Protein backbone atom coordinates (compact mmCIF):
# COMPACT_ATOMS: atom_id res chain seq x y z
CA UNK A 1 0.00 0.00 0.00
CA UNK A 2 1.54 3.34 -1.00
CA UNK A 3 1.63 6.41 1.23
CA UNK A 4 -1.38 8.10 -0.39
CA UNK A 5 -3.56 5.03 -0.13
CA UNK A 6 -2.44 4.44 3.45
CA UNK A 7 -3.25 8.03 4.38
CA UNK A 8 -6.69 7.84 2.77
CA UNK A 9 -7.50 4.55 4.45
CA UNK A 10 -6.45 5.91 7.82
CA UNK A 11 -8.33 9.17 7.30
CA UNK A 12 -11.52 7.30 6.50
CA UNK A 13 -11.27 5.40 9.78
CA UNK A 14 -10.63 8.57 11.75
CA UNK A 15 -13.44 9.17 14.22
CA UNK A 16 -15.47 6.25 12.88
CA UNK A 17 -15.54 4.32 16.12
CA UNK A 18 -16.46 7.35 18.21
CA UNK A 19 -19.29 8.04 15.77
CA UNK A 20 -20.51 4.46 16.03
CA UNK A 21 -20.79 4.87 19.77
CA UNK A 22 -23.05 7.92 19.37
CA UNK A 23 -26.59 7.11 20.48
CA UNK A 24 -28.51 8.67 17.61
CA UNK A 25 -31.97 8.32 19.15
CA UNK A 26 -30.76 9.95 22.33
CA UNK A 27 -29.35 12.76 20.20
CA UNK A 28 -32.70 13.12 18.41
CA UNK A 29 -34.52 13.37 21.75
CA UNK A 30 -32.04 15.89 23.18
CA UNK A 31 -32.11 18.11 20.08
CA UNK A 32 -35.92 18.13 19.92
CA UNK A 33 -36.11 18.92 23.62
CA UNK A 34 -33.78 21.89 23.19
CA UNK A 35 -35.60 23.14 20.12
CA UNK A 36 -38.85 23.09 22.11
CA UNK A 37 -37.35 24.63 25.23
CA UNK A 38 -35.17 27.40 23.83
CA UNK A 39 -36.71 30.40 22.12
CA UNK A 40 -34.86 31.47 18.99
CA UNK A 41 -33.22 34.51 20.56
CA UNK A 42 -32.06 32.57 23.61
CA UNK A 43 -30.49 29.82 21.56
CA UNK A 44 -28.65 32.13 19.20
CA UNK A 45 -27.08 34.21 21.92
CA UNK A 46 -25.82 33.01 25.27
CA UNK A 47 -26.53 36.24 27.07
CA UNK A 48 -25.94 34.67 30.43
CA UNK A 49 -22.21 34.68 29.77
CA UNK A 50 -20.63 37.96 30.97
CA UNK A 51 -18.15 37.91 28.09
CA UNK A 52 -21.04 38.08 25.63
CA UNK A 53 -22.51 41.07 27.43
CA UNK A 54 -19.18 42.81 27.12
CA UNK A 55 -18.86 41.91 23.47
CA UNK A 56 -22.40 43.12 22.80
CA UNK A 57 -21.60 46.43 24.49
CA UNK A 58 -18.46 46.72 22.40
CA UNK A 59 -20.48 46.08 19.27
CA UNK A 60 -22.98 48.79 20.10
CA UNK A 61 -20.12 51.20 20.70
CA UNK A 62 -18.36 50.16 17.52
CA UNK A 63 -21.34 50.28 15.17
CA UNK A 64 -22.90 53.38 16.74
CA UNK A 65 -19.59 55.18 17.03
CA UNK A 66 -18.63 54.26 13.49
CA UNK A 67 -21.94 55.58 12.19
CA UNK A 68 -21.60 58.87 14.04
CA UNK A 69 -17.94 59.18 13.08
CA UNK A 70 -18.78 58.61 9.43
CA UNK A 71 -21.51 61.27 9.54
CA UNK A 72 -19.08 63.74 11.08
CA UNK A 73 -16.56 63.03 8.36
CA UNK A 74 -19.12 63.29 5.55
CA UNK A 75 -20.81 66.40 7.02
CA UNK A 76 -18.00 68.08 8.97
CA UNK A 77 -19.98 71.26 9.50
CA UNK A 78 -22.71 69.56 11.49
CA UNK A 79 -20.55 68.29 14.32
CA UNK A 80 -18.74 70.09 17.09
CA UNK A 81 -15.57 67.99 16.65
CA UNK A 82 -13.81 67.63 13.36
CA UNK A 83 -11.21 65.13 14.54
CA UNK A 84 -12.15 61.54 13.69
CA UNK A 85 -12.34 59.31 16.74
CA UNK A 86 -11.92 55.60 16.24
CA UNK A 87 -14.06 53.52 18.53
CA UNK A 88 -11.63 50.64 18.20
CA UNK A 89 -9.29 52.76 20.32
CA UNK A 90 -11.78 52.31 23.15
CA UNK A 91 -11.42 48.55 22.99
CA UNK A 92 -7.82 48.38 24.10
CA UNK A 93 -8.61 46.31 27.15
CA UNK A 94 -10.13 43.45 25.15
CA UNK A 95 -8.01 40.36 24.62
CA UNK A 96 -7.20 38.95 21.19
CA UNK A 97 -9.87 36.28 21.71
CA UNK A 98 -12.50 38.83 22.60
CA UNK A 99 -11.53 41.01 19.64
CA UNK A 100 -11.83 37.95 17.40
CA UNK A 101 -15.30 37.32 18.82
CA UNK A 102 -16.27 40.94 18.23
CA UNK A 103 -15.14 40.73 14.61
CA UNK A 104 -16.86 37.40 14.06
CA UNK A 105 -20.08 38.64 15.65
CA UNK A 106 -19.90 41.93 13.78
CA UNK A 107 -19.36 40.01 10.57
CA UNK A 108 -22.38 37.81 11.28
CA UNK A 109 -24.48 40.86 12.12
CA UNK A 110 -23.55 42.64 8.91
CA UNK A 111 -23.95 39.44 6.96
CA UNK A 112 -27.47 38.49 8.10
CA UNK A 113 -29.39 37.22 5.13
CA UNK A 114 -26.43 36.96 2.82
CA UNK A 115 -25.55 33.39 3.74
CA UNK A 116 -21.79 33.72 3.68
CA UNK A 117 -19.15 35.31 5.84
CA UNK A 118 -17.03 38.23 4.75
CA UNK A 119 -14.27 37.84 7.35
CA UNK A 120 -12.76 34.35 7.13
CA UNK A 121 -12.33 32.89 10.62
CA UNK A 122 -9.10 31.22 9.57
CA UNK A 123 -7.56 34.59 8.78
CA UNK A 124 -8.58 36.03 12.15
CA UNK A 125 -6.97 33.08 13.89
CA UNK A 126 -3.60 34.17 12.61
CA UNK A 127 -3.81 37.78 13.81
CA UNK A 128 -2.59 39.13 17.11
CA UNK A 129 -4.46 41.69 19.22
CA UNK A 130 -2.78 44.67 17.55
CA UNK A 131 -3.60 43.41 14.07
CA UNK A 132 -7.18 42.67 15.11
CA UNK A 133 -7.54 46.28 16.30
CA UNK A 134 -6.32 47.46 12.90
CA UNK A 135 -9.02 45.34 11.25
CA UNK A 136 -11.63 46.80 13.60
CA UNK A 137 -10.44 50.30 12.83
CA UNK A 138 -10.63 49.62 9.09
CA UNK A 139 -14.28 48.61 9.52
CA UNK A 140 -15.00 52.03 10.97
CA UNK A 141 -14.08 53.61 7.66
Amino acid sequence: MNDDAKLEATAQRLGAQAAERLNVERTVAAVLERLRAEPLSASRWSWRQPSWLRIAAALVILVGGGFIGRRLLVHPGTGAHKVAHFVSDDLRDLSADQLRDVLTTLDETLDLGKGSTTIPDADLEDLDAQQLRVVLRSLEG
Partner: protein
Amino acid sequence: MAQPQPIAATPSPAADAALIAAWRGGDEQAAAELVRRHARALARFLAGAGAPEADLDDLVQEALIRAFRAVDRFRGQCQFRTWLLTIGGNVLKDHGRRAGRHKVVALDDRLPARDGNPHERAEAGEAEERLSVGVGALPRLQREVFLLRAQQGLEYAEIAVALDTTEGAARVHYHHAVKRLKELLQ
Protein backbone atom coordinates in the same frame (compact mmCIF):
# COMPACT_ATOMS: atom_id res chain seq x y z
CA MET B 1 -3.93 10.89 -5.32
CA ALA B 2 -6.93 8.67 -5.93
CA GLN B 3 -10.45 9.93 -5.31
CA PRO B 4 -11.32 9.32 -1.64
CA GLN B 5 -14.58 7.48 -1.22
CA PRO B 6 -17.11 8.30 1.47
CA ILE B 7 -17.69 5.51 3.96
CA ALA B 8 -21.37 6.25 4.42
CA ALA B 9 -23.48 7.31 1.49
CA THR B 10 -24.68 10.89 1.65
CA PRO B 11 -28.48 11.03 1.88
CA SER B 12 -30.31 12.39 -1.12
CA PRO B 13 -30.15 16.21 -1.23
CA ALA B 14 -33.70 16.30 -2.60
CA ALA B 15 -35.00 14.39 0.40
CA ASP B 16 -33.00 16.67 2.70
CA ALA B 17 -34.53 19.70 1.00
CA ALA B 18 -38.03 18.35 1.61
CA LEU B 19 -37.24 17.70 5.26
CA ILE B 20 -35.77 21.20 5.66
CA ALA B 21 -38.88 22.72 4.12
CA ALA B 22 -41.04 20.67 6.48
CA TRP B 23 -38.97 21.78 9.49
CA ARG B 24 -39.31 25.41 8.40
CA GLY B 25 -43.03 24.78 8.40
CA GLY B 26 -42.86 23.55 11.99
CA ASP B 27 -42.70 19.79 11.45
CA GLU B 28 -40.69 18.49 14.40
CA GLN B 29 -40.43 15.00 12.96
CA ALA B 30 -38.65 16.41 9.92
CA ALA B 31 -35.97 17.76 12.25
CA ALA B 32 -35.77 14.37 13.94
CA GLU B 33 -35.24 12.66 10.59
CA LEU B 34 -32.51 15.13 9.62
CA VAL B 35 -30.73 14.32 12.89
CA ARG B 36 -30.98 10.59 12.17
CA ARG B 37 -29.54 11.09 8.69
CA HIS B 38 -26.58 13.25 9.62
CA ALA B 39 -25.67 12.87 13.30
CA ARG B 40 -23.15 10.07 12.80
CA ALA B 41 -21.36 11.79 9.93
CA LEU B 42 -21.19 14.93 12.04
CA ALA B 43 -19.83 12.96 15.00
CA ARG B 44 -17.20 11.34 12.79
CA PHE B 45 -16.14 14.72 11.41
CA LEU B 46 -15.91 16.24 14.89
CA ALA B 47 -14.02 13.28 16.33
CA GLY B 48 -11.65 13.37 13.36
CA ALA B 49 -11.12 17.09 13.91
CA GLY B 50 -10.07 16.46 17.50
CA ALA B 51 -13.26 16.66 19.57
CA PRO B 52 -12.77 14.87 22.90
CA GLU B 53 -15.04 11.85 22.95
CA ALA B 54 -16.39 12.83 26.36
CA ASP B 55 -17.79 16.01 24.78
CA LEU B 56 -18.83 14.52 21.46
CA ASP B 57 -22.56 14.16 22.30
CA ASP B 58 -22.77 17.79 23.42
CA LEU B 59 -20.87 19.09 20.42
CA VAL B 60 -23.05 17.13 17.99
CA GLN B 61 -26.20 18.45 19.67
CA GLU B 62 -24.91 22.03 19.68
CA ALA B 63 -24.03 21.90 15.97
CA LEU B 64 -27.45 20.48 15.12
CA ILE B 65 -29.24 23.11 17.21
CA ARG B 66 -27.26 25.91 15.56
CA ALA B 67 -28.06 24.46 12.14
CA PHE B 68 -31.79 24.24 12.83
CA ARG B 69 -31.84 27.75 14.22
CA ALA B 70 -29.96 29.12 11.21
CA VAL B 71 -31.66 27.01 8.58
CA ASP B 72 -33.13 30.10 6.90
CA ARG B 73 -29.58 30.97 5.88
CA PHE B 74 -29.17 27.63 4.12
CA ARG B 75 -30.16 28.06 0.48
CA GLY B 76 -28.93 24.80 -0.99
CA GLN B 77 -25.58 26.29 -1.99
CA CYS B 78 -24.05 22.96 -0.95
CA GLN B 79 -25.41 19.76 0.54
CA PHE B 80 -27.11 20.11 3.92
CA ARG B 81 -24.61 17.67 5.40
CA THR B 82 -21.64 19.70 4.17
CA TRP B 83 -23.16 22.87 5.61
CA LEU B 84 -23.81 21.08 8.89
CA LEU B 85 -20.19 19.89 9.06
CA THR B 86 -18.89 23.43 8.66
CA ILE B 87 -21.18 24.52 11.51
CA GLY B 88 -19.67 21.63 13.47
CA GLY B 89 -16.24 23.09 12.76
CA ASN B 90 -17.35 26.43 14.24
CA VAL B 91 -18.81 24.70 17.30
CA LEU B 92 -15.54 22.85 17.83
CA LYS B 93 -13.57 26.09 17.47
CA ASP B 94 -15.75 27.77 20.11
CA HIS B 95 -15.35 24.72 22.34
CA GLY B 96 -11.57 24.96 21.98
CA ARG B 97 -11.64 28.64 22.94
CA ARG B 98 -13.73 27.94 26.02
CA ALA B 99 -11.31 25.19 26.96
CA GLY B 100 -8.57 27.80 27.14
CA ARG B 101 -7.34 27.63 23.56
CA HIS B 102 -5.73 24.27 24.18
CA LYS B 103 -5.57 22.04 21.16
CA VAL B 104 -8.39 19.55 21.39
CA VAL B 105 -7.20 16.13 20.36
CA ALA B 106 -9.28 13.03 20.81
CA LEU B 107 -7.66 10.78 23.37
CA ASP B 108 -10.21 8.02 23.56
CA ASP B 109 -10.77 7.25 19.90
CA ARG B 110 -7.67 5.19 19.60
CA LEU B 111 -9.08 1.70 19.21
CA PRO B 112 -7.44 -0.30 16.46
CA ALA B 113 -9.20 -1.36 13.27
CA ARG B 114 -11.24 -4.52 13.69
CA ASP B 115 -10.04 -6.44 10.65
CA GLY B 116 -6.62 -7.95 10.00
CA ASN B 117 -4.30 -9.78 12.37
CA PRO B 118 -3.29 -8.40 15.77
CA HIS B 119 -0.05 -6.93 14.39
CA GLU B 120 -1.90 -5.17 11.55
CA ARG B 121 -4.54 -3.92 13.98
CA ALA B 122 -1.90 -2.50 16.29
CA GLU B 123 -0.14 -0.85 13.34
CA ALA B 124 -3.41 0.61 12.05
CA GLY B 125 -4.27 1.88 15.52
CA GLU B 126 -0.90 3.55 15.82
CA ALA B 127 -1.29 5.18 12.40
CA GLU B 128 -4.73 6.46 13.40
CA GLU B 129 -3.33 7.88 16.59
CA ARG B 130 -0.55 9.70 14.79
CA LEU B 131 -2.92 10.94 12.11
CA SER B 132 -5.38 12.16 14.73
CA VAL B 133 -2.65 14.16 16.44
CA GLY B 134 -1.43 15.45 13.09
CA VAL B 135 -4.89 16.53 11.95
CA GLY B 136 -5.39 18.29 15.27
CA ALA B 137 -2.19 20.24 14.71
CA LEU B 138 -3.11 21.46 11.21
CA PRO B 139 -4.33 25.03 10.66
CA ARG B 140 -8.12 25.07 10.81
CA LEU B 141 -8.80 25.48 7.10
CA GLN B 142 -6.33 22.75 6.14
CA ARG B 143 -7.87 20.46 8.76
CA GLU B 144 -11.41 21.02 7.55
CA VAL B 145 -10.54 20.68 3.87
CA PHE B 146 -8.60 17.49 4.60
CA LEU B 147 -11.45 15.92 6.59
CA LEU B 148 -14.15 16.97 4.15
CA ARG B 149 -12.13 15.51 1.30
CA ALA B 150 -10.38 12.47 2.73
CA GLN B 151 -12.81 11.46 5.47
CA GLN B 152 -16.14 12.56 3.98
CA GLY B 153 -15.21 12.06 0.31
CA LEU B 154 -16.51 15.43 -0.90
CA GLU B 155 -15.59 17.10 -4.18
CA TYR B 156 -13.41 20.22 -4.11
CA ALA B 157 -16.22 22.31 -5.62
CA GLU B 158 -18.54 21.33 -2.75
CA ILE B 159 -15.82 21.98 -0.17
CA ALA B 160 -15.06 25.38 -1.68
CA VAL B 161 -18.69 26.50 -1.47
CA ALA B 162 -19.07 25.25 2.08
CA LEU B 163 -15.93 26.97 3.32
CA ASP B 164 -16.49 30.13 1.29
CA THR B 165 -13.27 29.73 -0.65
CA THR B 166 -12.26 28.79 -4.18
CA GLU B 167 -11.83 25.32 -5.59
CA GLY B 168 -8.17 26.06 -6.29
CA ALA B 169 -7.58 27.23 -2.73
CA ALA B 170 -9.27 24.10 -1.40
CA ARG B 171 -6.92 21.96 -3.51
CA VAL B 172 -3.91 23.85 -2.19
CA HIS B 173 -5.06 23.45 1.42
CA TYR B 174 -5.58 19.74 0.84
CA HIS B 175 -2.17 19.38 -0.78
CA HIS B 176 -0.43 21.10 2.14
CA ALA B 177 -2.37 19.05 4.67
CA VAL B 178 -1.50 15.77 2.95
CA LYS B 179 2.16 16.74 2.70
CA ARG B 180 2.37 17.48 6.41
CA LEU B 181 0.43 14.38 7.43
CA LYS B 182 2.49 12.07 5.21
CA GLU B 183 5.64 13.36 6.83
CA LEU B 184 4.09 12.62 10.19
CA LEU B 185 3.05 9.10 9.25
CA GLN B 186 6.42 8.08 7.80
